[in-house]
């Protein structure tokens, strides 16, 4: 879109994280949640999903995320939305909850900007998940960080907004937001949080300021902090991931932090959240480094028009096969909910055969016992491609449709879509893992259905 500004005043650099056609805030949230819970001592009792780009306005997105994570039905679920500050607010609430429920706070945004806008060059899409407990963790597992002080400010300063049903943000002048908004509203709230935490600003090692670079510099100065204390804003390899961004930067800071470090976390949007966190001196081990790995799993999008088409910004003729009616039988989705959302198949108690879908009669030709299958989650198993094709005739938002038979570690077979896979990449015997993705869009009824797909490891 460089022709819009022939002077080349915008000099975009680096990379921005965008969604594949079958990803959205919900699928990103599931992926982040899975990573967070890998190796967790106990599952969460509550899921708070933070986003301004949730696929459903009225249908609990967090509940579907919890189902995809195969959490217990007793899990409390909540969507939190409406401002880019929602992530920091949700984190503060989870840390301060009086019922003591272990809360999985997931912040995810899949951001779309008007083509040619400044936001298009700044936005990224990402999700991050933090497991938060207001009670001291029991047993040996020490926290990665303790939340020491929190302060809030609400102020209806409209730096940008997006009305219900609108596709794009409307952004106000950056200089006004910087000078009248950030510069005047943030410092006092930060000072309050530091005071409550009994931490001096000079003792902060990691300052998470998810704001534009010029505004960040100005805030640093007014808080008496220096450049070395400023946490990486991930502008070069991710972009601004909206409601996810403060917590994403926090996760990066937690990976970098040493025992005893203090972290200042700021959220901004119709007010300010400031949180002061400290890494316990007795922290047993740093968090598994995940950010670098997630960024390294990148695939470059080589086509701007394909990017536009996948964001729904270009009305592309996908052919007559795209006219297929994708009505979902909700009664079946509910009946098979744990199988479809949680990727839970069956494992035969008589012969051990793993199978999907779970069925009344075992599929093993040497067994065929009735009602012997127990629920068995497949999502975290390893898989292997047994057969595949690249189908240029089937409707696919990213042709060709690539699918094949996938064998699960320990047995079982399913014909599955391969995603994040380009023509020429699939191989017989290729190891795969499973990811929760958008399966089909029902344009007639504005519904989206999700299922699990295989992708190369």
């Amino acid at each position: 879109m460089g022709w819009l500004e022939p002077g080349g005043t915008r000099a975009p650099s680096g990379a921005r994280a965008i969604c594949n056609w079958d990803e959205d805030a919900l699928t990103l949230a599931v992926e982040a949640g899975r990573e967070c819970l890998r190796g967790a001592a106990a599952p969460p009792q509550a899921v708070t999903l933070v986003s301004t780009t949730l696929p459903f306005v009225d249908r609990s997105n967090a509940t579907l995320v919890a189902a995809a994570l195969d959490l217990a039905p007793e899990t409390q679920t909540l969507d939190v939305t409406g401002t880019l500050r929602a992530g920091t607010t949700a984190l503060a609430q989870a840390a301060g909850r009086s019922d003591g429920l272990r809360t999985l706070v997931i912040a995810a945004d899949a951001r779309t900007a008007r083509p040619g806008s400044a936001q298009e060059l700044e936005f990224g899409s990402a999700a991050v998940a933090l497991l938060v407990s207001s009670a001291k963790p029991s047993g040996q597992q020490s926290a990665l960080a303790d939340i020491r002080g929190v302060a809030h400010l609400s102020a209806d300063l409209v730096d940008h907004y997006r009305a219900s049903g609108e596709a794009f943000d409307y952004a106000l002048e950056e200089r006004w937001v910087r000078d009248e908004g950030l510069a005047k509203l943030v410092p006092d709230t930060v000072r309050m949080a530091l005071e409550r935490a009994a931490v001096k600003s000079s003792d902060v090692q990691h300052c998470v300021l998810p704001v534009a670079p010029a505004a960040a510099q100005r805030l640093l100065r007014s808080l008496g902090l220096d450049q070395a204390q400023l946490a990486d804003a991930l502008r070069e390899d991710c972009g601004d991931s909206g409601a996810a961004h403060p917590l994403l930067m926090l996760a990066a800071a937690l990976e970098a932090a040493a025992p005893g470090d203090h972290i200042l976390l700021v959220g901004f949007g119709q007010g300010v959240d400031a949180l002061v966190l400290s890494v316990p001196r007795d922290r047993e081990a740093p968090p598994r480094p995940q950010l670098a790995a997630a960024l390294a799993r990148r695939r470059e999008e080589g086509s701007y028009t394909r990017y536009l088409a996948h964001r729904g910004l270009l009305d592309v003729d996908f052919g007559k096969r795209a006219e297929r009616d994708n009505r979902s039988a909700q009664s079946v989705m509910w009946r098979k909910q744990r199988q479809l959302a949680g990727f839970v198949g069956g494992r035969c108690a008589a012969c051990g055969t793993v199978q999907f879908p779970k069925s009344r009669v075992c599929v093993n030709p040497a067994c065929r016992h009735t009602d012997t299958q127990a629920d068995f989650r497949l999502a975290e198993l390893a898989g292997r491609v047994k057969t595949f094709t690249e189908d240029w005739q089937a409707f696919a938002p990213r042709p060709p449709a690539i699918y094949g038979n996938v064998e699960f570690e320990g047995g079982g077979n399913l014909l599955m879509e391969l995603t994040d896979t380009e023509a020429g990449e699939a191989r017989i015997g290729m190891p795969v893992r499973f990811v929760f993705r958008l399966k089909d869009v029902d344009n007639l009824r504005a519904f989206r259905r999700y299922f699990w797909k295989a992708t190369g490891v």
Partner: protein
Amino acid sequence: MASGIRDRVAIVGMGCTRFGERWDAGPEDLMVEAFAEALTDAGIERDEIGAAWLGIFFDEQSTGKSALPLSVGLRLPNVPVTRVENLCATGTEALRGAVYAVAAGACDIALAMGVEKLKDTGYAGLPERTKGSFEDLYLPGSTAPGAFAQLAAAYAARHGYPMERLREAMAHISCKSHENGARNPKAHLRNRITPAQVLGAPMISYPLGVFDCCGVSDGAACAIVMTPERARALGKRDFVTVKALQLAPSNGVEMGHQSWDGSYTLTTRLAAQRAYAEAGISAPREAIDLMEVHDCFSITELVVMEDLGFSDAGRAPYDVLAGRYDRDGAIPCQLDGGLKCFGHPIGATGLRMAYEVYLQLLGRAGERQLPAPALGLTHNLGGIPNRNVASVAIFGVAS
């Protein structure tokens, strides 16, 4: 022990329309066209038909469900008509119903009609359809070429056979069928093609190019059956008898169990073993003189050469390239041009295959005629390799 169907039922008349993009004809026209030929061939009156079976797969395509399309279309005398559907084995399933009814003595003369009007969908290839209310929620949005193409990748992997060489054997299959189809006035595609054309064609679903895929056509075919005793009593000398009619549907193993590697069609093997037993054939390679197999895609024909027992495991590409299944080979395959040249109006296909075997056994195949064949085989594979219905039928000259 059941004695099976061998020699208990005779086919005394058959009809088959010209297959193709029959913009001129609806399903009713196609059924009337095929039926007129069969009635004349059988030398009976319409009202002598005691029961009928109608095979249609896509009932959405202007044909309609139930008995009515056939009963109304041919103005049958209100005799029982049963509509059947068993994926691509639908035509053979209709024949099975008619043959079993005669063998059971439920009626004296039965009609099996298969018809499909594919070209009213408005686009090329098979129509999009639901896979089922649950299956749509988890199975990929696959197409027929995509489902069958996987046989090639799995076959090449299993036998360590280079894909380029496998594609050459697949190309030979398509060229051979076009060579045969060019000699058949009822075929849809009557052009000869070269291996270079096949290998250079646009990719539909890797590794299947356009010429690895069968055509998409409209058509109808039918058979009139009665007992051999009745046929002889009517003074008929040239008729064929049914030697075997077997079906084998998947029971979920290919889709859900790790024991299947995707390189062959399990149900074809099972149906073939039963059909050979029913027909009393111990050495099919020597006994079968010609075959019409389900060449929806070139790779399907290649792997079923092994599944039917005509090629040893891993040897089908070599046998194909050596011309074993060409019109002058040891066991000619697709003498009429196959699905490749007739296309695949699904309800009609099984009966269209039987029609060619019938013509060959009676010496009526014109320039395609083999010298004195005695036994012919037809094979359908309905659905996708992961989940399907296979049928194998064997026909012979009346003894």
